[in-house]
């Protein structure tokens, strides 16, 4: 079966170690379609200027294109208003923004922040840092062996002390899709706000922040077919309005005197300094690309690859899958008996196959599974059944070396 989209991604048309490149590390970073690459370079060749402050033509064009991305993001995640869409440098920066700005003004000693066992370091460490600064306490939602959140345990963790729940929409190791609506409903019943780490979700499943009813939603352009250095923080307007700025600088101020500085309105209050203009503009092309394919097809494709890969991999002797939730996206992590993930990664690379090995920035999760490292293959719209066949061949080579 030919993949309809591979041709849109120039990077895939190459050999590595004399083998056709098979890229199975999209959860770390997506490859970019040609249209995104060209949108960025076109912008640099034709329209670049600093945004928001120029009275001349280039600046008008740059500002217009920049703000069009905001509109596209708003529609993409079904936000209610443009004021709720804040550009950051990535998911990590977006979560840190909330942890510092919301956390410093809302957490006090003894308050509780709930995260889950399956979080990425980017959704753990910012909360540890603000917990240490404020005296708040981190609580952890456990998971079952399949890699699903234990919602009963979550219910018991919630209390009047709970101030914020920070949880991944989709786990970057397990692929698990978490029941955000339910998590949010329960948190709101305790007046706690919910931050959703959407880094792994946006390229795989449709996201509707109003339906999820989450208070904050963070994600990265580079994991959704867009350029690096661009992240989005969605926040409900009423919350954002009452939060102090995170970084100070140009753009985010209204008036500056040494005696007193007043801040700009949303979303600019949170966008200090010159933004990543070219790549923000490139991100709109990525959103358009995904929209054009449509999430029906994206999901179908993802699930078909996941089903096939799961079926194939489980035939390998000594393999153990990590993450077998009922609801998951096209991420498949595993270990093989007596072979370290790192060695698997090297041998697969030699066969032209790029997978990720290690702890995937989720050490607590790996500890839960008592593995120091595992192998992760993750799929995107440009992957095909043939890629999974190549992975299987590669793993058979691995086993030849180690048996």
């Amino acid at each position, binding site marked *: 079966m030919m993949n309809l989209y591979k041709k849109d991604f120039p990077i895939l048309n190459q050999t590595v170690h004399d083998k056709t490149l098979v890229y199975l590390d999209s959860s770390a970073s997506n490859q970019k379609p040609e249209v995104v690459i060209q949108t960025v370079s076109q912008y640099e060749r034709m329209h670049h200027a600093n945004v*928001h402050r*120029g*009275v001349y033509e280039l600046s*008008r064009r740059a500002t217009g294109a920049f*703000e069009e991305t905001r509109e596209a993001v708003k529609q993409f995640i079904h936000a209610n208003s443009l*004021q709720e869409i804040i550009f950051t440098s990535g998911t990590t920066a977006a979560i840190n923004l909330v942890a510092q700005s919301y956390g410093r003004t809302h957490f006090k000693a003894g308050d509780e922040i709930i995260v889950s066992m399956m979080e990425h370091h980017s959704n753990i460490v910012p909360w540890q840092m603000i917990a240490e600064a404020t005296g708040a306490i981190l609580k952890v939602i456990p998971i079952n062996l399949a890699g699903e959140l234990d919602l009963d345990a979550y219910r018991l963790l919630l209390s009047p002390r709970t101030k914020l729940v920070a949880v991944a929409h989709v786990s970057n190791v397990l692929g698990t899709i978490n029941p955000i609506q339910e998590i949010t409903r329960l948190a709101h019943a305790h007046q706690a706000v919910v931050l959703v780490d959407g880094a792994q979700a946006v390229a795989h499943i449709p996201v509707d922040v109003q339906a999820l009813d989450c208070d904050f939603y963070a994600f990265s352009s580079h994991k959704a077919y867009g350029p690096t250095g661009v992240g989005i923080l969605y926040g409900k307007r009423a919350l954002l309005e009452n939060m102090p700025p995170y970084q100070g600088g140009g753009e985010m101020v*209204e*008036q500056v005197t040494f005696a007193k500085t007043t801040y*700009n309105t949303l979303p*600019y209050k949170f966008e200090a300094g010159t933004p990543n203009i070219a790549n923000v503009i490139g991100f709109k092309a990525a959103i358009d690309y995904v929209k054009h394919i449509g999430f029906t097809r994206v999901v179908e494709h993802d699930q078909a690859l996941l089903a096939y890969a799961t079926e194939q991999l489980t035939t390998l002797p000594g393999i153990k899958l990590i993450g077998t939730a009922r609801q998951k996206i096209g991420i498949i992590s595993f270990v093989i008996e007596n072979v370290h993930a790192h060695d698997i990664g090297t041998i697969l690379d030699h066969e032209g196959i790029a997978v990720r090995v290690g702890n995937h920035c989720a050490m607590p999760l790996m500890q839960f599974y008592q593995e120091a490292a595992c192998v992760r293959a993750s799929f995107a719209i440009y992957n095909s059944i043939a890629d999974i066949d190549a992975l299987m061949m590669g793993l058979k080579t691995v086993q030849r070396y180690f048996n």
Partner: protein
Amino acid sequence: MSDLRELYQDVIIDHGRHPRNIGEMQDATHRQEGFNPLCGDKVKVYIKLHADRVENIQFEGCGCAISMASASLMTEALKEKTLAEVDILFSAYHELVTCGATSDHLGKLRVMAGLREFPLRVKCATLAWHTMKAALAESKQIVSTEESV
């Protein structure tokens, strides 16, 4: 007439340089400050309302020719108007400067039609008007042209 000449008509240059109805109004019933952080334009609008009629309207401020002229022309246009008429003029003016749509009510304000070719200057041309609206709504916050994305 070139776009630029249409923007900087003599009437506008004149009102920009010698704005009418300028100065503080002691007995204003409504007053409001407005600010455009992009270019530093500032305006303060004073209104004396009698029943539902603008008995007097004045402004203070500093800024570019467009913002000063638009404030000056606004005060001339709104004097003696009822609140309902103010609303109609506000909308008509807005359409004029954003897409050049002229309507009969506008009168002398029509000199601002050249703005439609200068989207970057629309904020200058509407600061005084937004501030006036906010004054009538008795908003307490300083009006900023950056309020809406």
